[in-house]
């Protein structure tokens, strides 16, 4: 079946089953490989994208559930104010190591900052604990979010 979805402001038509997860539409059908596969069960957050500014796990978001919703991926998040701040802070603190999970981390962090410009540590825990980083860059993720938020950076 054919679906037309808005990805980064561009309507994209794909011919797949309606229960196909958005993740595979992005990566395999549209060739947008910045969004990563990690677990397939919304357990790791590597596949996080925004659907109308909310962070969602694209591995369990079926293409037929998107409708008129606007999908934003890592490839375009730098075009949002929060996303640009987060990317700059990520570079400043050199957060990524292997980097594989970082698309998802940045998408979760951008959604957090768009919603709460000055998050507390508890807010960061809430928003970011769905994203696993096997390299364990958590100390820098926290610092970078605080830097992006413009608040005092201090180690917990």
């Amino acid at each position, binding site marked *: 079946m054919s679906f037309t979805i808005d990805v980064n402001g561009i309507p994209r038509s794909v011919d797949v089953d309606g229960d196909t997860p958005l993740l595979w539409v992005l990566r395999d059908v549209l060739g947008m490989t910045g969004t990563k*596969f990690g677990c397939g069960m919304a357990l790791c957050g590597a596949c996080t994208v925004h659907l109308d500014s909310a962070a969602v796990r694209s591995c369990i978001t079926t293409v037929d559930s998107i409708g008129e919703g606007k999908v934003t991926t890592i*490839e375009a998040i730098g075009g949002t104010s929060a996303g640009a701040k987060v990317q700059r802070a990520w570079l400043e603190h*050199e957060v*990524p190591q*292997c980097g594989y999970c970082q698309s998802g981390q940045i998408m979760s962090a951008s959604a957090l900052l768009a919603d709460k410009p000055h998050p507390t540590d508890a807010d960061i825990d809430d928003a970011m604990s769905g994203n696993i980083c096997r390299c364990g860059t*958590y100390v820098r993720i926290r610092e970078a979010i605080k830097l992006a938020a413009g608040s005092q950076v201090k180690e917990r």
Partner: protein
Amino acid sequence: MTSDRKASDATVALSRRSFLVKTALAGGGLVLGLSLPIGESRSSSAETFEPNAFIRIGRDGQVVLTMPYVEMGQGTYTSIPMLIAEELEVGLEQVRLEHAPPNEKLYANPLLGVQATGNSNAIRGAWKPLREAGATARIMLIEAASRRWGVGAGHCRAEAGEVVHTPSGRRLNYGELAVEAAMIPPPAKVVLKNADEFKLIGTPARRLDVSGKVNGSALYGIDARPPGLKFATLAQSPVFGGRLKKVDDSAAMAIKGVRQIVRLDDAVAVVADHMGAAKKGLAALRIEWEDGRHAGLSTRDIARELEDATLKAGPVAQDIGDAAKALAGAATRVQASYHLPFLAHATMEPMNCTVHFRGHECEIWVGTQAIARVQAMAAKAAGLPPDKVTVHNHLIGGGFGRRLEADGAVRAVEIARQVDGPVKVVWTREEDIQHDMYRPYWVDRIEAGLDESGRPVAWSNRFAGSSVIARWLPPAFRNGLDPDTTEGAIDLVYSLPNFHVEYVRVEPPGIPTAFWRSVGPSHNVFVTESFIDELAAAAKQDAVAYRRALLDHNPRAKAVLELAAEKAGWGTPLPQGRGRGVALQNVFGSHLAQVAEVEVAKDGSVRVHRVVCAMDCGIVVNPDTVQAQIQSGVMFGVTAALYGEITLKSGRVEQANFDTYQMLRIDQAPSIEVYLVKSAEPPGGMGEAGTSGIVPAVANAVFAATGRRLRKMPIDPDTLKT
């Protein structure tokens, strides 16, 4: 340049181009080192200066460095160029990087003898040869300039990619000298800079690989997309060694996008237009397996076999003094037995490999820590000579030892042989965890004798488990021993006058084993640092003071221990339920002391609040990378201590995804402080020490908080309930 080099350059052209083009799209100042104009054309060898396998300078002045080690987050694509650039006298912003092609002769790690990135030894192995590579090139460029100018080479110097004639101030950039430099015979001997002359080494360099990792443009193996690509996922026999008996694929083939079912002896794969259809197809298959002889196997069986093995003598790994006699005469004897579990790697990038099998040749896209091994094993699986197998390496989305293995590439070749056109085989997370090659299970039986003052006068340890080296690098396994399996169990930092260690090799049935971050020390440091803590407790002495008294002949170890203790506030009071634990080690050529502060709740759950690390890793190449690697190693080790355990039941791995094989998350992550001790010693390894030391530090902290000694990992909260 050798003919070897030409041939292998051709093999990496495609991956290099796609990798570099992609990273070029990232934009921004930091990407300079990886940027490349699209539509690049290689200059011919006649116009290129290639003094060795690592450096290529074209007439355009572009300096290309070929990276013999692969980037998996450890910062090697910045620190290795720093070594070359330091002596070549170029800035990091002036170099461009390429992944090295498979070539054991040119790109073997000097410490391993094979082309591989692992064992925390890239910097250790590269420290001398890659600085020499840079110095050789610099000397030849200077010589070329001095000949052109008709001046003495002694009046010329190199700086920032140019040769300068000091008296006149004339300058020529390296590109202008490339053709002439290629004619200069390489110097027989080069003198390397002293540490006080370093311009780059020891200064904080921005990582060259990071910018593509914040905007989705970095390319991992899983992102390869050769034209005409199909997507596959697979199910392998749930019991290791089992066979595929029967598959009913009627429902799967009816799914939109599913193209083909591939049957192998012990696996079945679904090939489709995208991974969504492949996964759906896989779920719709009705598969019958022949489980084979491991169908009844459990972890308990393996543990019992290892326990029994520690009752019999094994090859002696180290023997100092007379441990048996000293034990017999000791005032107090302390005995313990330790168990460490199988562990999965759980790299965030699941196992994957893309293969285009064309009958007479085969092309592979993958992220690997051991590209030559992949080429050799894939060639065997493809029934082709290795030179007919092209391997394009990529950034690695988590290695930790998993990608030192070629099983994923072999599997993908087996599938691709039955598929027309290129196919990307991606393992589901469940396959990735249930068909990993695991950190071995270990059992140690250890005993020590203390004198009247509590000081250890005898130490005797016998441990049993798998030797990964015996399978992976057989020549390094000699007389029943190998340097990895015993690292951290022998050559301890402490003065122990009577010391005896034996290793009994036991390969567990029905479960494959492999290297796992911090390898031998991941097991041995847990045992030795837990046991020395037990001895301190038996002697009723402070854990830091007890260790310190055994370090009079080891100033580097003593210095990091004292620094970590001081920074952690060792000895200062903590709230009820909290405790501090320490661990000290000299592994991978680096000295590291760690103090963990933990809290044990009434329900027995353990929270690691704070970790203080003091490190002497010799000369520091890139200081921020050292910090980052310690932070990373600590999180990896805390994950193992709190959650890490792979178990077998009825021959099957019981854990499957991140719900049953948990990872540390940000809300449970400790704060980490890292203090570096200035040192003039050669650099030590950094990627793994943080992992091996933190596990016993946490266990010792739990002891301090609760009085319960943990001799089996991971921590079982049920045993800590109050």
